């Protein structure tokens, strides 16, 4: 039988708060890159914006699931809403786990994969057909992994870690390519923290302290992203 969540009692609510901070940060970056896309009309900016929007969506799904699971009152209201659709024998745990977690995993994995593509590709390559077919293949794999992850939670974090490792590597190359500029270093550092957070979350089955560690590391990663965004855009 699977466990629904691994959050220590004292940390419940804090993780939602952390996630919501990350949602605001990712939405800011998505909005700014979308603005740049409207000016520039370069596809990579639209993909980049979409990737951060997907991170926001993933975090929102996670926050929603956590809120429903932690707080009984909200859980009862959600159950009343969903019962006509799900039927009288609504199994709350199964429904939430399979629906909301599935959407969370799909959004997050999609976001990381898109970021991986955008961070590694030279200009305009994403426009070409073979890249699109590659993305379609990976999209299929993502759906498959998201389904499998419903039964084994660590598969999701393991897959995320692999893709995040590749993203961090691409940002390390970018850091070298930009002549070791500080903002490029910060972006690389932020993704290293997000990667470390995901690595910690792989081991939540061993101890729920890993959940706290993972959430804190990811928050630091997103805060470094905010700091870089603020420094670079002056906003």
């Amino acid at each position, binding site marked *: 039988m699977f466990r629904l969540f691994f959050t220590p009692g004292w940390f419940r609510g804090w993780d939602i708060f952390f996630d919501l901070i990350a949602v605001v940060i990712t939405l800011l970056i998505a909005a700014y890159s979308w603005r*740049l896309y409207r000016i520039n009309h370069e596809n*990579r900016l639209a993909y980049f914006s979409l990737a951060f929007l997907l991170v926001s969506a993933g975090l929102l799904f996670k926050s929603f699931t956590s809120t429903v699971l932690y707080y009984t009152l909200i859980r009862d209201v959600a159950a009343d809403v969903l019962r006509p659709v799900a039927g009288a024998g609504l199994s709350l745990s199964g429904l939430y786990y399979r629906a909301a977690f599935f959407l969370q995993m799909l959004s997050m994995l999609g976001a990381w994969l898109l970021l991986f593509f955008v961070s590694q590709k030279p*200009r305009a390559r994403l426009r070409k057909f073979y890249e699109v077919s590659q993305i379609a293949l990976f999209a299929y794999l993502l759906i498959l992994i998201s389904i499998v992850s419903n039964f084994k939670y660590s598969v999701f974090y393991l897959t995320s870690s692999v893709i995040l490792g590749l993203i961090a590597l691409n940002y390390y190359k970018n850091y070298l390519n*930009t002549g070791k500029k500080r*903002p*490029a270093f910060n*972006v690389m550092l932020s993704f290293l923290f997000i990667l470390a957070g995901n690595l910690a979350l792989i081991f939540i089955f061993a101890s729920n302290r890993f959940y706290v560690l993972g959430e804190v590391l990811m928050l630091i990663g997103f805060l470094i992203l905010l700091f870089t*965004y603020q420094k*670079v*855009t002056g906003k």
Partner: protein
Amino acid sequence: MGSRRSRLELIFDILLAIQNKGGRIKPTHLMYKSNLSHKLLNAYLEELIGKELVIIEEVKTKRKQSPTKTVAITEKGLGFLAEFRRMREFTDAFGL
């Protein structure tokens, strides 16, 4: 060899060339500084004038009887330069 400049980068190079010359430059100098053909520069200048990023001024000099045409950058043009620099910082940082 460097990659082909995008439309926005060309506009940035034109405006930067004007700014580097103290905000005012002769069209011939601008052509050399921005590394564009006469035809292409005129097309871009028309667009920039339409968007009020630059204006054409006529300056009288002691040497010439007729006034000389110069291209001057506007406040809006200077604002665009600052915004473009921020955009470039952002895209560089994220490797875009």
